[in-house]
C-alpha cells in the first residue's frame, strides 16, 4: 500500500483493540474493501457492534468456519436479506436495552440490485441500522459481472463491449427515503470519511454510507493505485462526495475540478475501460449532466475547486 492513509493501514494504539478486519484475511492485495474496513474499525473504536454481511467478497473475507477474520460478531446472511436480518438484530438488542450498533456491510450487488427491496423497506421503517455499501461496481465474488453500479462504459464479463447505461444513483435513491443520514465517502479524503463514519455511527435510525471501493481484480488496475483512482474519480466528478441529512439537506463535501486530466487518468489506469466503445467525451458529458441534477439539489459550489483532492475536505 503506497498510500499514507491514516499513516498506512497499520493498526495503531489509536485503534479498536480488536480490529474489525484481522490480519490473515483472504482479500486481494490492494482491495479497497480492506481499506474501508480499517477505517470503519478506527471509527467504531470501542463501540459494541454486530455486523450482517450478505453474500459478497466481504463474507469470503471472513474465511472458513470456525475461523473469522472479523473482530466482531458477524451474521453471514443470504444475498438479498442483510437489511432484514439486521432489522431483527436491531429490534431485539433495543428491546433489551443494549447499546449495540447493528451494521450491514454489503457489496453493490447486495445493495443496488438483489438487496434493494430489503434496504428500501428497512430505510422506510427507519430501522436503527448503519448500512455500509462498499461499491466495487461489479459482482466481485462471482468473478466480475456487471451490476447496476457498474459505470457507463466499463467492460465486465457480462458487458464485453462496455456497459451502455449509466450507474444507478444509489445515494439519490436512499435520500429519497428521507433517512436521517446518507453520505458518500472517499478513501482518498480520510478526514471527511472519518467524520462521516463517526456521524453515521452516532445518529440513530437508518443511516447509509456509500463507499467507492477499488477492486484491482475487477477494475484491472494496479493494486497500489486504488486510492489514487478514487481521488481521480472525485476530482473528475465521476464520484460525487456528499451528504444528505433527512433527505433534504444536500451538501457537496469535496468540490471536483472536473479536469480532463483526472478523468483521463481515472479511465486510463483501469483495464476495464480499455475496450470500451463509448468515448471519453461521452463519459464526460454524462458526468456533467449528473452534476447539473446534483447542483439543483445542493445549490452552487461553495468552495473553490481543489486541484489534487488531497486534504480537500
Amino acid at each position, binding site marked *: 500500500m503506497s498510500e499514507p492513509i491514516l499513516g498506512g493501514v497499520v493498526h495503531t494504539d489509536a485503534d479498536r483493540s480488536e480490529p474489525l478486519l484481522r490480519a490473515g484475511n483472504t482479500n486481494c492485495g490492494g482491495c479497497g474493501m480492506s481499506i474501508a474496513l480499517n477505517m470503519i474499525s478506527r471509527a467504531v473504536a470501542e463501540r459494541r457492534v454486530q455486523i450482517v454481511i450478505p453474500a459478497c467478497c466481504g463474507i469470503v473475507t471472513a474465511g472458513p468456519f470456525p475461523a473469522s477474520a472479523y473482530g466482531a460478531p458477524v451474521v453471514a446472511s443470504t444475498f438479498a436479506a442483510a437489511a432484514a436480518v439486521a*432489522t431483527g438484530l436491531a429490534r431485539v438488542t433495543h428491546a433489551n436495552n443494549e447499546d449495540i450498533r447493528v451494521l450491514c456491510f454489503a457489496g453493490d450487488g447486495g445493495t443496488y440490485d438483489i438487496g434493494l427491496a430489503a434496504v428500501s423497506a428497512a430505510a422506510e421503517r427507519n430501522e436503527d441500522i448503519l448500512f455500509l455499501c462498499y461499491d466495487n461496481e461489479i459482482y466481485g465474488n462471482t468473478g466480475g459481472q456487471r451490476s447496476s453500479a457498474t459505470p457507463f462504459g466499463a467492460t465486465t464479463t457480462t458487458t464485453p463491449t462496455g456497459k451502455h447505461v449509466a450507474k444507478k444513483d444509489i445515494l439519490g435513491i436512499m435520500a429519497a427515503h428521507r433517512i436521517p443520514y446518507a453520505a458518500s465517502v472517499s478513501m482518498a479524503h480520510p478526514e471527511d470519511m472519518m467524520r462521516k463514519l463517526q456521524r453515521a455511527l452516532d445518529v440513530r435510525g437508518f443511516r447509509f454510507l456509500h463507499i467507492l471501493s477499488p477492486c484491482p481484480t475487477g477494475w484491472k488496475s494496479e493494486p497500489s493505485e486504488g486510492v489514487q483512482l478514487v481521488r481521480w474519480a472525485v476530482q473528475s466528478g465521476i464520484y460525487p462526495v456528499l451528504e444528505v441529512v433527512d433527505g433534504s439537506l444536500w451538501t457537496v463535501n469535496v468540490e471536483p475540478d472536473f479536469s480532463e486530466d483526472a478523468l483521463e487518468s481515472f479511465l486510463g489506469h483501469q483495464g476495464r475501460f480499455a475496450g470500451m466503445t463509448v468515448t471519453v467525451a461521452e463519459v464526460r458529458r454524462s458526468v456533467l449532466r449528473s452534476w447539473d441534477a446534483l447542483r439543483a439539489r445542493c445549490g452552487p459550489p461553495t468552495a473553490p475547486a481543489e486541484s489534487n483532492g488531497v486534504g480537500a475536505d
Partner: protein
Amino acid sequence: MTMHMISANHATAAAAALAARANRSGRGFCSGVYPITPQTECIERLCAEQIPKGSVVRVESEHSAMAVCMGGALSGARTFTASSSNGLAYMAENVFAAGFYRLPIVMMAVNRTLGPPWNIWVDHGDTLMLRDSGWIQFYCEDNQEVHDTTLLAFRLAEDEEVLLPVMVCQDAFVLSHTMTMTDIPDQEAVDRFLPELRLPHRLTDTPRVVGGLDFPHQTEVHRKQHLDAMGRVPGVYARIQDEFERCFGRRPPDPVVPYRMEDADLVLVSMGTTASTVRTAVDEARARGVKAGALRLRMFRPLPERAIREHLAGRKRVAILDRDSCPGLGGIVWGELRGLAAPGAVVQNYLIGLGGGDIRPEHVRGVLDDLASRDESGEPHFMEAGA
C-alpha cells in the same frame, strides 16, 4: 382456559402471542410478517396484540419476513411468522437458511395451491416443496390442534436437544377461515409450559461468524448434526406431549394417528383435514362389513418411519391420498411412504383434492372400492374432486 369461537388463523395468532409474552423475562419476541391469502387474518391479529419486549415488523416480502425472524432469533428472541403458497416459494431461500442456522423459528403455513394459475384453495404442495429445508413439519386436522401445535412447536423448536425451526401447517379455508370453539389457555399456564428461550449460538460480543463459509468436511459435520437433531425429535416430542397434557389437560396427537386399524386390511393414509372425511368413509365401510382403517400423518418431518412401518405391518392394501402432485413422480407423500408398507402389499397412490377440490365421503368410498379391487399397485390414480 376459556373457549373462543375463532378461526384457525386467529387461534394461531393467539398461540403465537401467548408464546411471545411468555418470553418477556427472556429476550422478548420478534416477528417479520407479510400478508397472503389465506394467512392474512393471522398476521393482522398478531399486529393487534400487546407484546412486551416484542416487535412485529411489517416487512416488504416473505423473504424479509423470514430474515427478520432469523435476525431476531440470532439475538435470542422467540420468533414467529406465517405464510402460504407463493409466499413460501418466495421465502424458500431463507426457509432453508433458518434451518441451516438451526434457529428455533415457528412458522404457521396455510396450505394453498401454488400458482399460476392462481388458486387460493387448499393443496399441500407448497409446504411439501420445503420438506428438505431442515424444518420439522406438522399437518393439523382441526383448529384446536392448530392452536396447540403452535404452542408446543415453540417448546419443541427451542429444546436444547432439537434447536430446529418448526412449520405448523393447516388447510386453507377449511381451517384457516372456519370458526370453531377453541380452548385458549391463560398466560400463566403458557408461562409454565414455555421456559425462556436460551439460544446457545446467539450473537453476543464474541467475534465469530454465524453461517459463514464451510469446507466439505465442515459441511458434512454440520449436516450430520442436523440429521441427528431431527433424529432426536420423536423422543423429545413424546416428552412434550406429556408436559403439554400436564399443563393444559389435553394430549396433543401422536405423529401418526391411527383410526380403526385393529384388523384393517384396507388402509387409507392422508394428511390434514382430508383425514376427517376419511374417517367418515371408514365408518361407512365398516358398517358395510369392509375392514377399512386409516392413518393420519400428522408429523411429516421428521418422517415417523418406525411408527408408519409398525402400523402398516401385515396390511395387504394401502391407499396413499396425496393432496399435491409431483409431475414426473406422482404424489409426494406416496413417494415417501411406498417403501414402508409390508413386503408384497399393494400401495396405491391417489391424487385427490388438488387445487382445493372438495374431497367428499363418496370420493373416499371410490378410493376404497378401487383399492379393494386391486391385486397390484398401478400408476398414481388421478381423481377429480373439484368437478
